[in-house]
């Protein structure tokens, strides 16, 4: 692709434009692999280059700072599950189609399978493990329990987290709006009826 083709930079994560990325990758390919991050100039601006190999990464998960040494290609989901053993977010489709891996970063629901761990640094990451309020279930969780909105339960953490993120942002949402808000999550056992009942309960009693 000619360099001048991309007038508007498209993000590939960490604020690196696609154009920068092409330049960086040609730099990296020639360089001897080193551990850690480097700053290179790309289009005159400093850009952080991670890897190859394991690099130090800091993740703020559920209010706790974790220091990891991981490959830059590792997703946030895999870092949570395989490095930190925080396994509530599930790996199902691994490409942003089903929502089972949903976590909240800086108040926004994201598919953890489609965010690189390095790109989640500096963000507040909230997983299903911190949705409970101390020993008590969150009202969303209570509504899921009472309306039997889980069967095998593998999709459930994703639904609960996605619903929490949506209601945090849209506290007055109607059931229809909430259903649309949850359209990025899929269930195989067919718990949607229970989830709909849970949604009705939440909109009546509040979350």
């Amino acid at each position: 692709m000619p360099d001048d083709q991309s007038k508007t930079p498209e993000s590939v994560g960490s604020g690196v434009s696609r154009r920068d990325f092409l330049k960086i990758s040609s730099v990296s390919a020639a360089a001897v692999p080193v551990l850690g991050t480097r700053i290179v100039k790309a289009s005159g601006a400093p850009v952080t280059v991670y890897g190859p190999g394991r690099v130090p990464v800091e993740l703020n998960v559920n209010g706790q700072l974790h220091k990891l040494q991981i490959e830059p290609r590792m997703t946030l989901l895999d870092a949570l599950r395989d490095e930190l053993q925080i396994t509530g977010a599930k790996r199902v489709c691994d490409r942003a189609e089903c929502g089972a891996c949903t976590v909240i970063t800086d108040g926004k629901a994201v598919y953890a399978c489609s965010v690189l761990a390095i790109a989640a640094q500096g963000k507040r990451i909230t997983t299903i493990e911190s949705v409970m309020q101390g020993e008590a279930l969150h009202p969303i969780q209570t509504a899921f329990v009472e309306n039997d909105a889980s069967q095998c339960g593998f999709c459930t953490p994703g639904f609960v987290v996605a619903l929490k993120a949506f209601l945090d942002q849209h506290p007055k949402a109607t059931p229809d709006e909430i259903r649309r808000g949850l359209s990025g999550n899929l269930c195989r056992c067919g718990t949607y009826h229970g989830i709909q009942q849970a949604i009705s309960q939440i909109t009546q009693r509040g979350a």
Partner: protein
Amino acid sequence: MPDYSWPSPATSALIGKRVTRVDAPAKVSGHAQYTYDYHGKNMLFGKVVRSPYAKAKIVSIDVSAAEKMPGVKAVQIIQKAGSTVQWAGDEVVAVAAIDEATADDAARAIKIEYKKLAHLVSDAEPPAGAGEAAGPFSSDDIDDAIGNQLPDKQFIEALQQRGVSFKPEEDDLKDWADEGASDDVINAIRKAPFHNTEGQQPHSFFQKAAAQTQGDPDKAMAEAEVTSEGLYGATVIAHCCLESHGSVTEWPDKDHVFTHISTQNVSGIAGQMADPLEVPAANIRVHQDNMGGGFGSKFAADRWDIAAARLSKKAGGRPVRIMLERDAELQVAGARPSAYARVKVGAKKDGTLLAWQSTSWGTGGPGGGGMPPIPYIFSIPNKRAEHTTVRNNIGPARAWRAPNHPQAAMITMGALDDLAAKLNMSPLDLWIKNLDIAGPRKDTYREELGIAAELMDWSNKWKPRGTNLSSGIARGLGLSIHTWGGRGHNSDCDVTIHPDGSVEVKIGTQDIGTGTRTTIAIVVAETLGLPVEAINLYIGDTLYPPSGGSGGSTTPGGVSSSSRRAAVDAREALFAQVAPGLNAQANDLECVNGTVRVKSGPSRSLSWKQACSKLGAMPVTARGKNPDKSKPPDLTNSGVGGVSMADVAVDMETGVVQVKKMVAVQDCGLIIDLKTAESSCYGALVMGISYALFEEKLFDQQTGRMLNPNMEFYRLAGLNDIPELVVHMMTGKGYDERGVIGLGEPPVISPGAAISNAVANAIGVRVPILPITPDKVLAALSQSTRAGAQ
């Protein structure tokens, strides 16, 4: 002898009530542990290299580069050079490395040379006369027939006619019995004539099954006042378990194996791993806390599970995890066979069914697949059913909830619905007219059809075909009925009462999302007069008494029977210790509401804790079993009936089908927990909407690969596809006293057929094959317009 029989739901504290799923809090909080969540100490990550070709001979395998890579700890060849792979995605080599990225790199460094062979991934109608007579059964064919739950009668006849190509060994027969083959089938395998097929040409892609004939179909068809013909069917679909198949396996020492595996069959896995790993089954421990969906596809220790165990051994016993990636999950870990049929039905003008003629085909992959039980439910007096199996290279089929039944329902109920339209009858009237030939559950259907019709408001809403159109949206109603067996499987259960009053239940079953934990806890709590929370329940481990695999709707019957007998016997042992202090006979005691009291004088009572303290220093444990003829009555039963009705809206311009409402009416004998039973039905309606409208495994004919091995293009229904769902469980007289029957299969059978019939009612023409995608709706409409113009 103690009374083991079920208490009546009318007087029980818990049985038949809506009890909340006991593990729901763990599931909604992310604390429920699944196999995929297990992280063994020093765990290695396994990856499988899969064949890119649908059929190919492996010429050479070079793993040297991978073996030399830093971080790679073991490489295991699964299929050697010289083997033939039979489907794209077939396992060839597995590697284990210190992290997933390294394992991925190592897998990419493995060089495999293939010689491509001609493949078939289509399951289109076989050319006329293409089907060769089926040869003798190989042991794979028998596995397949058992896995597909081929009806006994059909299976035994086929065994007698076709014989077997091998000499069955006792071990094989035992395995098949464990997998659910009846004694009659085992005997038929034993007695089947042996035909040596060695050195013969490989099978054709097409194999004719023996025709089934009853009465005089030709004469009856000729005499029928009305006949109706059509094509009906359902394509191959996937299980698409959200927790993919796989395991984490380690060798704690050189003689022992410990596997965490995602399975529907905890107690059966060790026996399957023993042979290939050359370790006694007794040295293999299997564990699973929760599992993320199986739907019939997770009974085996799969090839990748054996590979994980071998990799672990090579790597000094370190745990090795192989959980399938999503593409592999959709390619190789489960498929429901397709089935298609050209059907002609003949009837009298009043709707009385006289004759059935069908020519059907379908594929279950390399092993082919049996004919679905058609005509379904209605035993039409004159019939001829011919079937050709397509053996192709799409990968093996696995049991998918109610094997063969959803396809049989689609074919049969579709054909009868078209007949009703031709007779200008409401399908509801046609069904009711013919209930006399609807088998042992006919009275159940009659009652259920009445209830379903009321819940659907059928009599007000139903209109003749193609007459309910407004603003480009056509509305229609459809129905279907279904049946299933579901007798309780073999199950052992231990109930222990401790002197401090705590209660422990141990049973090697599994909760696959159906509420098995809740069922067992309710039964024991009810029997001991305690709340559900008082029961400490341990399942999912070979350390506990063995209990059958969760398939064929056999778990509720099995585990409720064994846990009931165990709890009654443990209670009797407690009564024996408590009776003297209460100045009563042991058989005059009862457990009610946290007390042990004298039936004839309830004022004489002890709290549960006080009563248990009379046990002295040692707890009491009782083992309950199912079946157990020495402890009558039989607490489980077999045979249920159910009805589904669908109300749909079809956009005539875009062909998009929207389900507006569904009704399910279902019996399952005595219901232990009404809440989770209803959830099974709601879930089945959702799954039915999903396979009726969206799901299909698509294959590229040229490359032989699956085109949609992801969750974007292998579509599952989402929250917004789900309409008003109404579930009614049959309870009370005629149902409660039958005993406990499972519910995993029945309610998922009919929704597809009901939706197909509703679409036909709406748009005036049949969309023959599920899933009913917009393109098929538009094609059916344009075909009927063209036909109308001619």
